Every structure is written in C-alpha cells, then in structure tokens.
C-alpha cells in the first residue's frame, strides 16, 4: 500500500512530524542517513534565546516573535499555533515518560552549559530544572577524574563570575566505571545499574554540603533516568540537576529514543542508514525519492514528502569550494548567497549569526518550498525544521521550537492539501 507521507530526516523535526502524521491517521515512514541531530543537542526545548545583536538573553520568547524577520518560520506559523504545537509536544512527551516543564509565565529558564554559561531554554527536561538560575541556591558542580569534556572547575568559576554561588568537586573515576574510558552514553548506561547508582550516592554524600544544589554531567541513567534522578534526590535530600555534555548528549538521546519507540508502537518505521540521493518528479509532482544502497538506488514512493534534513550541521545542505551551496536531496532554490565571500561575517561568534546559516529553503504559508518568484516548486513537497530560510536556529537558540512548530504546521498543511494533488 502506498505511503501517505515519507519523512526524510530523523532529527526532532522528522520524528515530531511523523508522530503528528501518525496521530492523524496517515501512513508514514521516516528515512534518514544516520542517527539524527538530537544526539548532539542538550535535550532542552529552546524557543527563542537571543534576538539580533542583543547581548542579553530573551526573557519571554513568545512576546518577541514579531521582532523576527517577516518570513521567519515562527511568523509563518503564528504565535498561537506555535504555542499550541509546543504544548502538544509537551503532553505527548509526558505520555512517553519525559517530563518537560519550564518557568511560570512563559519565561525562559537559564541553565548552565558545559562551560558554565547560562543557556536560555523554554522547556527543560525534569533532570535539568533544578539547575535554573532563578533558584538562587548555591551549586556544587561535580565531575569525575579523567572524564573528558566535563570540567567542573571551569563551570563553577564561570558561574561564579556571573553571580551564581558555585564550587567544584571531583570524584574518582572508579565511582562510575571499572573500565578505562567511557563516553557519556556508556556512563549513563552504567548508571542504569543500581550498584553504580549506590556508589555515586555514597560518594556524593561525602562532598555535598547542606543546602547545595548538585550539578552533574548528564549521565544520570539512559533507560532508568527517572529512577536515578529520584534516588539521588531522595537519598541525598538535595536538588540534583544534569548539565548537558558535549556530544554524545544523553538528554537528547533520551528524547530521540522515546520518540522513535513511540513511532514504532504506532507501526511507523524509522529506517536509518538510508541516504536520500535522488528523486523523480513528473509534471511538478514527486513520484519517488531514491536512497543509496549497497548496489542500486532504492525507490521510496509516497503521496507526500516532507524534507526535514536539517541545516548545515544536520546535513540538509552541502557546499563546495567554488561557492556553490545547495540543498542535498531536491536541490531546491535557496535564499543563501551563492558567493562564498558572503557566507560568513568576519567574527566566528558574531551575535548576528552568519548569512550562510540564516539562508535556506523559503516556504509559503503552507510550508511548501517556493522559488524566488514565490511559486511552489513541487506540488507534494513540504519542508520543516533547520533547513528553513530566515531563521538561524543556532544564533537564535530556537532550534527545537522551530523544529516542532514547523513540523506540526507542515503536517497540518499536508493533511489539508496533499491528497488533492495525489
């Protein structure tokens, strides 16, 4: 039986869109080149953290949406629909055992990054909420001797410099593992084991002072996260929070895993290792997308196609030294400058971001890719997430909000529109 919808990309956008489409009763499948970008992200839902050249983080993201560029995905979706999409996502993830929540009144929360900077986020997973700057209580940032990419002294000192009382403590590596070298995922798996949890609790007892919040690298269990968090909080009688690590990032992986399992439970296949390399269209209608296999390309037919391959980092775009910059599956028209001298501003961390990152696939109000003249490129193609033009999710700290809002809006449009074309 023909698929109603083929989603290309298994990041937050693709998985969210597939879930929404499956809920609406569409026959949907997800294909992706590899594991999606959720594996790199801190697992927070960031709606809007920074605006333009403003140095201060945005306090109330929904109140600032109309200051974004006119064709920014949020402005196409509209604040009300975007809020509804995020709320739907919060409810669904709660059903999957992930308890996302934020500050009261729609304010951004601020939690420590792995270098001790405050990161603005709209929703935090349960494990990160006690790290909010709003709380005010002193922190002890706990690391482990020899753990790569997590330096408690650096984090604590930077937090202190920003007015947050914080100190660092380092526990022996052997608390976590008898193995020589483990990354954050493997450490989280080790903490799924009750014996490792107990070792950690015993070790923490010796270093934590009364009244301190305990900040740990985000390794507090992979499958048993909720149990680990509860055990630590209760046994130590202290607030405990995770600080998302450099990739691989366990809170993002927990979210990816929960979404994939939910899809599998609904009979939606998520096929990894399938790189979309070509497609065939007839009279402006896409008939199939092809993925690379060990021999011949494999055809994936569907009535509608949703492109959710992400931005530059996610793999939605590629470029070459001649200055060509293209969308990788359909070679869609882009707003990105086709002159490599105009891709980047001189400063790497320019608060305004870079033109190469704000450029992308322009869409109409139904999230269908359009050309420069505003014409729909393919009648049965939609796009959502990091590849959309006029947003710079990294500089804006809007990656997850744009992903969810545009994924939901695109699926709503597909429900309304696709079958007229097919």
């Amino acid at each position, binding site marked *: 039986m023909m698929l109603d919808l083929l989603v290309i990309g298994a990041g937050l956008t693709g998985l969210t869109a597939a879930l929404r489409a499956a809920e609406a009763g569409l026959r949907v499948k997800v294909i992706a*080149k590899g594991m999606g970008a959720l*594996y790199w992200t801190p697992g927070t839902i960031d709606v809007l953290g920074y605006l333009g050249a403003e140095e201060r983080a945005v306090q109330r993201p929904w109140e600032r949406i109309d200051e974004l560029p006119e064709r920014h995905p949020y402005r196409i979706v509209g604040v009300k629909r975007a809020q509804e999409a995020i709320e739907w996502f919060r409810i669904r993830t709660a059903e999957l055992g992930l308890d996302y929540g934020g500050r009261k009144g729609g304010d951004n929360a601020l939690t420590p990054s792995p270098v001790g900077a405050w990161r603005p986020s709209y929703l935090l997973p349960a494990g990160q909420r006690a790290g909010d700057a709003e709380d005010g209580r002193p922190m002890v940032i706990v690391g482990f001797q020899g753990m790569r990419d997590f330096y408690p002294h650096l984090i604590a000192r930077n937090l202190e410099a920003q007015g947050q009382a914080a100190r660092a403590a380092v526990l022996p590596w052997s608390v976590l593992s008898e193995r020589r070298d483990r990354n954050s995922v493997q450490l989280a798996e080790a903490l799924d084991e009750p014996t490792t949890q107990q070792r950690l609790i015993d070790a923490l007892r010796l270093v934590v002072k009364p009244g301190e919040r305990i900040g740990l690298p985000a390794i507090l269990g992979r499958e048993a996260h909720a149990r680990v968090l509860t055990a630590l909080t209760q046994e130590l009688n202290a607030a405990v929070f995770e600080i998302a690590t450099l*990739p*691989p990032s366990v809170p993002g992986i927990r979210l990816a895993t929960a979404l994939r399992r939910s899809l599998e439970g609904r009979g939606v296949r998520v096929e990894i290792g399938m790189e979309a390399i070509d497609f065939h269209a007839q009279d402006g209608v896409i008939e199939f997308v092809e993925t690379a296999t*060990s021999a011949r390309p494999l055809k994936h037919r569907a009535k509608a196609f949703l492109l959710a391959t992400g931005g530059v980092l996610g793999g939605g775009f590629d470029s070459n030294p001649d200055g060509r910059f293209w969308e990788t599956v359909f070679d869609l028209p882009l707003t990105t400058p086709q002159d490599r001298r105009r891709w980047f501003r001189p400063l790497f961390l320019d608060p305004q971001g870079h033109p190469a990152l704000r450029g992308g696939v322009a869409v109409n109000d139904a999230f269908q890719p359009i050309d420069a003249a505003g014409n729909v490129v393919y009648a049965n193609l939609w796009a959502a997430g990091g590849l959309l033009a006029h947003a710079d999710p990294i500089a804006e700290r809007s990656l997850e909000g744009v992903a969810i809002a545009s994924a939901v809006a695109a699926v709503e449009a597909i429900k309304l529109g696709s079958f007229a074309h097919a």
Partner: protein
Amino acid sequence: MAPVSWHSVDLTLDECIKCNICTSHCPVSAVTDLFPGPKYVGPQAQRFREGGQSRSPDHSVDYCSGCRVCNEVCPTGVRIAELNARARAQIVAEKGLPLRNRLLGRNELLGKLGSFAPALANFALHNAFSRFMAEKVMGIAREAPLPTWSTSGTFRDWLKRTRDRRLKSDKKVVYFHGCATMYYEPFIGKAAVVVLEHNGYEVIVPEQNCCGLPLLSNGEFNAARTYHHNNVSRLAGYARTGLPIVGTSTSCTLTLKEEAPELLDYHDEPATTLKLGTYDIFEWLRELYEAGELRTDFQPLPLKLPYHAPCQQRAHRIGKPALELMALIPELDLAESHARCCGIAGTYGYKVEKYQIAMDVGAELFEFVKAQGQDVRYTACDSETCRWQLEHGTALPSRHPIEILAAAYGLYDLERRDVVAGKR
C-alpha cells in the same frame, strides 16, 4: 607494500565531525577496553596512516568486528568500517597472518574438505578433545558455535538428485548459495529453490566460489581478489542478460555488491554489472511483491517469531524486506529485534581472544529473545553465522526467513528443515 589503497574512503574522512554517535553505538567498545571505538580507530587513527608509512600506528583495529553499525548510524557518511578493514589489511601485509586466520578465511576449502566424509569430519571437529586442541594450538575458541557438515550431501548433490523434478520456465533467476548452504546447510538452498519455483521461476545455480568475505575480514585482500575475480567471470554474464542473481546469505550478497568491489578497488565493467545484478533474496522478492507478482497463498503459521536483521543485512541499506514479507503470513507474530549485533561477526567470535567479547556483544540480542516469552520455538535471522551464534546464546533453534516463507507456502517443514515430500 600493503595491498591496500585508501582510495574511496579518504574523502569521507573529512566528513567526520567527532560527534561520537558511532562510539555510542559500537557494540564492541561497549563491552571491552581492547577496542576504543570506531571514531578513534577509524577517522582519527587514519590521520596517522596516510602517505606510505612503513608501520601501522594502531593495532586495536584488529578488535573491530566489522559489523558496520558505525556506518549505519553515522550522520555524515564516514565509511568507518571500510577504513578499519583496510587498516587491518595493512597490518596483515606488514606482519603476516596466523594460521588460524588463514584457515578461518578459507571456509570454502574447509567446507569442501569436510564434505568428503562429513560424519567423520563432524566427529573429528566436534569433540571435546579436538576443540580443546584447536583452542590451545590454533586459538579457535572451544565453545564457539562452529557449524557441522551436512551428512545428507551438499546442496549441489541435492540439485543433481532432484534434477528431473526442478521447474523449467521462461522466467529464470540465478541463485548464489554461498559456502554455508553448499556444505553445512543445504536446506537453506532447498527452501530458496522451492520458494522461487513456487513463484514460477526456474532456478539456475552456476559454479561459484566463496564470495571472499572471510578473507576480506581477516585482511587477506589478495586471496579475496582471486575469489571475486572467479565469481565475476562466472556470474557477470547472467547479470548482463538481465537475470537477477539472488542470494540467501546476506553477507555473500553484500560482498558481491559492495564489499569486494570497494575494498579491492575492483570496479571494471563485469564487476559493476555483477554488483548491479545482485540481490538479497528478500530484496528481490519484495520487488516481485511490489509489482504484484509474488504469490501470497500463505498458510497460517501460528508462531511467535523474534526476528533479528543481522548487521550484514542492514549494511545493504534496503530496509528489512524479510520482515515486510514475513508480515504477510497469517498468524505469524513477529517481534523485531533492535539489538545492534549478535557478536559473532563472521569469524570474529571464533577466535579465542574474542569469543567472550562476541558473547557480551550478543547479550543484548539474547535478552531480547528471552523477553519474548516461553512460547518462542524459533528465532529468525538471515545470516548463517549469526543464526549459529543465536542458537548458541539462546538455546533456541534459528531459521532463515526463506525457511519461514517456504513453510508458509506449505513446501517446507520447519522442524525437520527439509522440503515437504511430494512438494518437489
């Protein structure tokens, strides 16, 4: 100098963004410190392997099982498994290869030798003393699930014996059986033949060699080239006339399609024609199904069946066609494994220093099977060495999906592993 080039993998090296997704999924580094993980051994160590240097900088690559999970999950398309295979070949070229690895690489020869007197060969290999000696002298783990030679003749013997009963038809398909079907498990080939004939196809079984994968994964590229050359010579002609070449061993078909051409830089016209004409049998049957040409006169199979798509099947990047087609069988209750690897990885788990690693890797899969409950009678898996490992790790018999399909057509007895009498 090493018989390797870095030709096709060099450029993918720069695609590595150090995200560690591969290391997080690597089933081997998850269970042993002896293998630090694909990112380190692959794209990182590779920086030190360039430019005709005389010695390899990193020997832990020998602990890569070659399962290709890293390739599967990599979001940027780095060909990590190929990097590792080439690095291993370079070490073999530098240091030579122990007798054990030479033997394990030559399963065609072993199959042939044992088949002269299979009962004797089985006795000679499968007794406690021999296995003890094989471990002590050669380093082949005594508990490892080595196969037994078929005592009812080879697959080709059966073909000869039943020559008069085989279907003749205008629709033809070429069958690549591989060594395991030929010498150890002829019933897999019988199941494939009856399924193909049931769908109206005459099955052609040309002379063929081992696909060469055991040699490739043991780093013997030159010997593998000879095998691949022979297969290309014997099979490309069929592919050129448009006949599909289907195989029941997913690792053999993967080797014909991709591993051999890629690792051996073997891309001439005949090799490419063979590559493009070769199919995993379920990949091809799915095409028949999608064209509305697959017979679906399936009888109910009231079974709970845990199915594991092996690494070498997933490396085809064709989805899971066996799962899709088995789902058409009434009353068959399929459970899909998401375990990364069974651990055996061809001949990896036969080696004494790697046996326990292979069992620890497989634990995830064995647990999955156990979680499916007491009434599970069989597991299913497309790859022979993985089935043997599954049986070893779960104590449940394992079947190839083609056996399941043949049984659902009423042509095959799953318990006796033979075609049903009177059904060809």
